[in-house]
């Protein structure tokens, strides 16, 4: 097949080799280092211990069930909010999106304040019954599954909502005209249309829940319930094994294999059903159940979005634990002390510097990758795309272990650079995905028109595509920033004296039992995240940044 496009100008070639070299260094080298160190028969054989088997089963169980729950809940919620005549739709959209804006481990601290052994619910129950066994036990697999699902369902919601927008109204009307009732129509026409999105969403959530460290660390470790990321953490940080790096590498290899398999599966499955049919789908009338459904949604939204933040707020404001909740016992002193503590300040500065660096690097690399992949044809493009996207399927723990192995010989272990590189590796896909759609959305003819006007291809890119794709680059980089500044999983394994990130500071405070400080900081991070991401979402409204497409 001789597709003789116009010859490519040198600028593209140089950019392609540059990007490829950078990605090889940032992605391929660490992954290969991990495989080289971890994929050894004797190490992998060592994995066949009861401890590893148990952690593996626990990982699969918690991430599998939580992904299932999140998918079902997110999809159901999307159908309810997007496709029925439920009132206050925008309010519900925002309220149910909130758990996504709070980092999972922060959310876990908040939920512990509600349902933990000394959380409000159990304390009320204990005071009423005189028991010291709580009503709800958040520790262990149940709590882990619940919280993983809670923090994951907004992704399903967004993917489902996007897929629902793609269901042509005419197809649904055709079903109604053929005699199908409302529910029947949803089952026979609407759902089959969004199944691929649901399946893809499930796999995505499975991998992301498999990767999460914060929730199982906070809710599993206290009851010795280990999953793979926490097991790797206890190998590397807790020193619970003879050859920590070897064991962590072997476990990392296993996680890497699971993540990569899911990535490929998802790529394979995510083929959209398409149709030329058109028209906006009409909302389904809820009829008599409209108000009960609304009340129920409101209650759940309150529980999900408001309760943990409220619990954090009360916990942070209360002068001391156990004192009654009266105005004179409320103080800002705890928050002030926690926020101004030198460790917090250092953690914030580190996280800020790292997040800014990661956002800038990811912005540049991601924009280049997206532009090259969308706008040029070259046999290297596939490799570039895969290199940039595959880390997204890799659990943060894997990224961290890979960078420990890469960083030690490079002499950057125990420095901030190693965290920065790991962040860029882990998050560059966020920018690539945000920008790719945006560049693809700029019709090629716009560039061609510029070329015929006398602009070189690079100039056309600069004058036409770049300005049009710039908001997506900004949004993608902003996402990287907000993800990185509150990150825990990767940095938990990479921090050294002086390079602690904000997430690690909060996590350590919690682990050390300094709940006063960890609660106060969790509150600040949760509110900061809500404000920051909320502002960004408002500023880029309608661009489908968080959308799956």
């Amino acid at each position, binding site marked *: 097949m*001789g597709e003789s496009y116009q010859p490519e100008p040198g600028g593209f070639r140089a950019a392609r080799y540059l990007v490829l070299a950078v990605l090889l260094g940032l992605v391929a080298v660490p992954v290969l280092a991990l495989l080289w160190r971890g994929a050894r028969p004797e190490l992998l054989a060592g994995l066949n211990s009861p401890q590893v088997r148990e952690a593996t089963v626990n990982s699969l169980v918690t991430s599998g069930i939580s992904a299932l729950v999140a998918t079902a809940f997110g999809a159901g919620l999307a159908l309810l909010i997007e496709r029925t005549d439920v009132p206050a739709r925008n309010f519900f959209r925002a309220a149910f999106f909130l758990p996504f804006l709070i980092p999972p481990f922060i959310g876990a601290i908040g939920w512990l304040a509600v349902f933990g052994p000394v959380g409000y619910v159990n304390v009320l129950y204990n005071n009423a019954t005189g028991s010291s066994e709580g009503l709800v036990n958040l520790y262990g697999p149940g709590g882990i599954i619940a919280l993983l699902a809670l923090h994951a369902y907004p992704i399903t919601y967004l993917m489902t909502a996007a897929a629902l927008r793609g269901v042509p109204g005419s197809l649904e009307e055709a079903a109604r005209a053929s005699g199908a009732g409302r529910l029947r129509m949803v089952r026979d026409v609407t759902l089959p249309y969004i199944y691929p999105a649901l399946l893809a969403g499930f796999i995505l959530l499975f991998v992301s829940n498999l990767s999460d460290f914060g929730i199982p660390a906070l809710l599993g470790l206290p009851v010795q319930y280990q999953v793979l990321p926490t097991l790797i953490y206890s190998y590397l940080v807790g020193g619970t094994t003879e050859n920590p790096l070897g064991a962590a590498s072997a476990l990392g290899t296993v996680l890497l294999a699971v993540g990569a398999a899911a990535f490929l599966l998802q790529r394979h499955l995510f083929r959209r059903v398409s149709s030329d049919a058109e028209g906006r789908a009409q909302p389904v009338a809820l009829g008599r159940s409209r108000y009960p459904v609304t009340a129920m949604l409101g209650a759940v939204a309150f529980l999900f979005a408001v309760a943990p933040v409220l619990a954090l707020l009360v916990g942070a404001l209360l002068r001391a634990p156990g004192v009654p909740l009266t105005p004179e016992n409320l103080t800002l002193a705890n928050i002030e002390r926690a926020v101004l503590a030198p460790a917090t300040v250092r953690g914030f500065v580190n996280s800020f510097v790292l997040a800014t660096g990661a956002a800038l690097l990811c912005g540049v690399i991601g924009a280049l990758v997206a532009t090259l992949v969308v706008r040029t044809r070259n046999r290297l493009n596939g490799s570039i795309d895969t290199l940039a996207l595959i880390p997204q399927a890799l659990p943060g723990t894997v990224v961290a272990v890979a960078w420990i192995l890469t960083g030690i010989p490079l002499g950057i272990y125990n420095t901030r650079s190693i965290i920065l590189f790991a962040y860029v590796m882990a998050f560059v896909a966020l920018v690539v995905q945000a920008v790719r759609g945006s560049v693809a959305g700029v019709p090629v003819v716009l560039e*061609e028109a510029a070329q015929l006007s006398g602009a070189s291809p690079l100039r056309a890119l600069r004058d036409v595509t770049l300005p*049009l794709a710039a908001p997506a680059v900004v949004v993608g980089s902003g996402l990287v920033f907000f993800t990185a500044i509150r990150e825990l999983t990767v940095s938990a394994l990479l921090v050294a004296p002086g390079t602690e990130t904000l997430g690690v500071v909060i996590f350590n405070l919690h682990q050390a039992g300094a709940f006063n400080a960890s609660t106060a900081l969790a509150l600040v991070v949760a509110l900061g995240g809500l404000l920051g991401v909320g502002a960004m979402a408002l500023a880029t409204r309608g661009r489908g940044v968080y959308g799956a497409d």
Partner: protein
Amino acid sequence: MAQIEFQDVSLAYGGGGGVTGVDLTVEDGEFVALLGPSGSGKTTLLRLVGGFLRPDRGAVLIGGEPVAGPKAWVPPEKRRLGMVFQYHAVWPHRSVASNVEYPLRLAKVGRSEREERVREALSLVGLEGFEHRAPETLSGGQRQRVALARALVMQPAALLLDEPFASLDAALRARLRAELSALVRRTGVTVVHVTHDRTEALALADRVAVLHEGRLVQVDEPRRLYSAPATPFVARFVSDAALLRVRARGAGRFALEGGNEFEVENIPEHGGSGPGTLAVRPQDIRLEPGGEGRVRAVLFMGDTQEVVVGWRGHELRVQAPADARYRLGEAVRPVFGRGVFFPDG
């Protein structure tokens, strides 16, 4: 202004749309339409001129200079062409004036001259005073005029039009078509216009080049194309002719497969005898009462009506006067006034 020449141009293309051995010269100041169904290679030819594709074989010349060929390559930005795309490629992040002045800016034309020429170009397309408007505030037709102004502002060697009216509604399409015709005659620019709409091609072009499966099948003036198609394909595509497999018996007599004979009153070119294809345009068939034909559908078109007649295992489309009345199932006899016979081989 310049001549455009294709010399034995070939380009293989995955999944249709390639071209094979195209030889075509568009004269300086001429308006040539490239007509064909989708996948026929017409857009490929246009993009070869634009420089967005490079031929596997042969050469493309603009103004006598090779711009693409075995040894030559001139990138799109150096070809001095103007182009208007199907989906108005007006840059949404630039104002109307800034869209139109972009080529001038790249050519480093001074500011005051730029302003002057932008104003001229906008007035040429009837958009005086729209300089500071944002493209999203314009209608589809207005955006297409902006694109046209931008294409013309540099006084290009040639104007390339890629289905420029396809995304507009019928009434607007007709008006813009007339405006475009007047405009290009006035400026004298060489135009290559790609379209799958035969009415548009016939109405606008000095000559129409019909493409079929990547090959040029006929290049001719619209009237000749209409009256003397070179192949059955052209006859059907350009004038909606019915194609009948027949054996010519001489003196205007033909036999259908199966032996039934019939007569055609006027055969312009006696292409010989033996097996072949007879093309008959709807307006060259009359219907008389009684006979073997059966009326299957009647479509009222305003000044005429289209009657679909089943006749000896064939379906004929007949253009009948608007005042005649036909009932479904009515027996009619088609009379063939004129036909073009294409002997096999």
